[in-house]
């Protein structure tokens, strides 16, 4: 009996029991749909995380200002009153001389005025290296230069979204904007940066709405807003006001972040521990900073992803297993019901192998049909999830091929026993069977 004949027989058989076939297929449909939608969600999350981490850079270490609170705050006031400061950046530069770039970043919110209406934007004071370290690029004009930093030059560079907000469709190049009390000339425009929908890491934010100025301008013009509560204690209040009134030296000026770019990914972890020891000394044990290594985050996220994948695979294989058992059950019933047919076929010359193959193919036809429908349902489910939950889902060809392959495999495994049972039927008995 040719394969085609056997498949045709299988299809006819399924067609003549539409409801039963449909119900049998449901198990496989759900299993495959579960695999595909889960893998899509996992894949989407993975891509998202990867892209974001890649965007942060795999060869960088971030040192960020951190808030202290409670009891620690009081100690911090005493030992490290400025938190992360400009001098830390210089110190890091000195110690990590092998680092390709050490870029201090100073973020403040300020009112920016072009016309009459002020717009509050994030003003980022930094140095030329920022462009490289954040993998941003200037679309037109130029970024901040070393000379701007040294000369305290009143220039600024606009992020794509900030430009749109401030100037609409007008060309801002060469125009002046008023940031705080100072007038700054727009010398450059940044290229828009792609930012993922869901932000998996707090370290990553939308850079498009930023305005960049030389860090020296930031230090002389703006203060980093401190989230300290106003102390009730008069002595402390005086201390705070003195601190707020006095202008700290450049080195002591608080900054929000230092980004250190090293030679390669492998250098990040040792660099981070070196930095930790420097800062621990200079901040006298106060952890008012945090060190973030994107490469480590990536590794952690991959680890999590692996666990997630294992759990998913387990869930999916359970549902496919249940589907497979359903198929086995129905195939066993079919074999019993069709004993006489088996007898007739054997009698007119079918070998045991012919019978095995026929019933295997029937099971395969069920699972493959179920697998096909399941792929459709799974793809639909994935797109529904990304629509409603706003998650990113990526339906990969591998997932489709894999789940379809697995459902075919389930058909073979769970169709085998019923098929062998069918072939074991004694034709003499089978013909007498009614």
């Amino acid at each position, binding site marked *: 009996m*040719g394969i085609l004949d056997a498949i045709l027989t299988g299809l006819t058989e399924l067609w003549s029991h539409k409801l039963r076939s449909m119900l049998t297929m449901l198990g496989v449909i759900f299993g495959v749909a579960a695999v595909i939608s889960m893998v899509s969600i996992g894949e989407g999350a993975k891509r998202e995380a990867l892209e974001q981490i890649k965007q942060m850079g795999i060869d960088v270490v971030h040192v960020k200002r951190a808030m202290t609170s409670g009891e620690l705050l009081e100690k911090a006031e005493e030992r490290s009153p400025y938190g992360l400061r400009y001098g830390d950046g210089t110190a890091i530069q000195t110690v990590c001389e092998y680092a390709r770039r050490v870029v201090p970043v100073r973020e403040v919110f300020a009112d920016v005025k072009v016309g009459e209406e002020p717009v509050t934007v994030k003003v980022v004071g930094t140095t030329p290296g920022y462009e490289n370290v954040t993998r941003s690029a200037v679309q037109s004009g130029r970024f901040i230069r070393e000379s701007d930093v040294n000369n305290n030059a009143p220039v600024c560079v606009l992020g794509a979204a900030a430009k749109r907000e401030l100037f609409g469709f007008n060309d801002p190049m060469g125009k002046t904007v008023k940031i705080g009390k100072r007038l700054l000339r727009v010398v450059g425009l940044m290229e828009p940066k792609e930012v993922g929908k869901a932000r998996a890491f707090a370290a990553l934010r939308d850079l498009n709405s930023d305005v960049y100025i030389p860090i020296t301008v930031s230090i002389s013009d703006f203060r980093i807003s401190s989230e300290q509560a106003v102390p009730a204690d008069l002595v402390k209040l005086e201390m705070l006001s003195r601190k707020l009134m006095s202008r700290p030296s450049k080195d002591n000026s608080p900054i929000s972040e230092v980004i250190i770019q090293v030679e390669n990914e492998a250098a990040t972890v040792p660099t981070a521990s070196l930095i930790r020891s420097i800062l621990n000394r200079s901040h006298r044990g106060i952890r008012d900073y945090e060190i973030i290594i994107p490469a480590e985050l990536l590794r952690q996220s991959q680890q999590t992803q692996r666990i997630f994948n294992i759990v998913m695979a387990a869930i999916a294989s359970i549902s496919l297993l249940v589907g497979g058992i359903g198929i086995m059950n129905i195939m066993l019933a079919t074999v019993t019901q069709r004993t006489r047919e088996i007898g007739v076929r054997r009698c007119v010359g079918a070998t045991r192998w012919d019978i095995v193959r026929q019933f295997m193919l029937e099971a395969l036809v069920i699972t493959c049909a179920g697998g096909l429908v399941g792929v459709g349902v799974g793809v639909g489910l994935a797109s529904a999830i990304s629509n409603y939950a706003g998650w990113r889902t990526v339906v990969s060809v591998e997932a489709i091929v894999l789940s379809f392959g697995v459902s075919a495999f389930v058909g073979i495994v769970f169709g085998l026993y019923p098929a062998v049972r069918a072939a074991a039927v004694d034709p003499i008995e089978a013909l007498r069977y009614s």
Partner: protein
Amino acid sequence: MALISVRNLRKTYDIGSVRVPALRGVTFDIEPGEFVAIMGPSGSGKSTLMNLLGCLDRPTSGTYTLDGMDVSKLRDNARAAIRNGKIGFVFQSFNLLMRMTALKNTMLPMLYSPEGRNRQFASDALESVGLADRVHHNPMQLSGGEQQRVAIARALVNDPAVILGDEPTGNLDTSTGGGIISIFQRLNAQGKTVMIVTHERDIALHAKRILSFRDGLLESDEPVVDRLYAAPKSADGVDTEAQA
């Protein structure tokens, strides 16, 4: 040379610890073109003999030569090939596959034949049993007589050396059964070797030779003297009722 040559054929069934002899040493020859009826009461071993002759079972001892080939010791797959190519089965209960048309049922043995399928052979076979206009009917849409004629067409389609009928008229009324017997007689007249098992003497008298069995032994082997000829016209039960 004999088409079928059976020598001291024995079959013993093991039912638990009890050994039940069903055939206790049977010897006979059947020449090509014979029409043999096998008779005997139940328990005489005629069904066992049919299973052995049909290569559905293997004898405990003795030899069975079919068409010059000793088939008594063949393995499962080889016996399947013999059943497919050399033997045409016709059963008491027709044993058609309900979800297939008459044509598909007729073509069934071809599915397992090395020669492959030939739709023309199948429709010719159906035509030869008078069912040219029922080719695309399902068994449910056919009368008992028509179903049995589909079964005969199925038995003929691979051009077997012998047709084995196991009580082929047992489920049919007399006139319909007569129609079936007439087909067997016609096929035999055209040169086919036919063997039928029956317990009705009236049916057996349509054959050329009767083998009678009792208690697992061949009791008598005699030619039919006053052979009966069935009328081909009342082949179908439905038609007969309509005429009556």
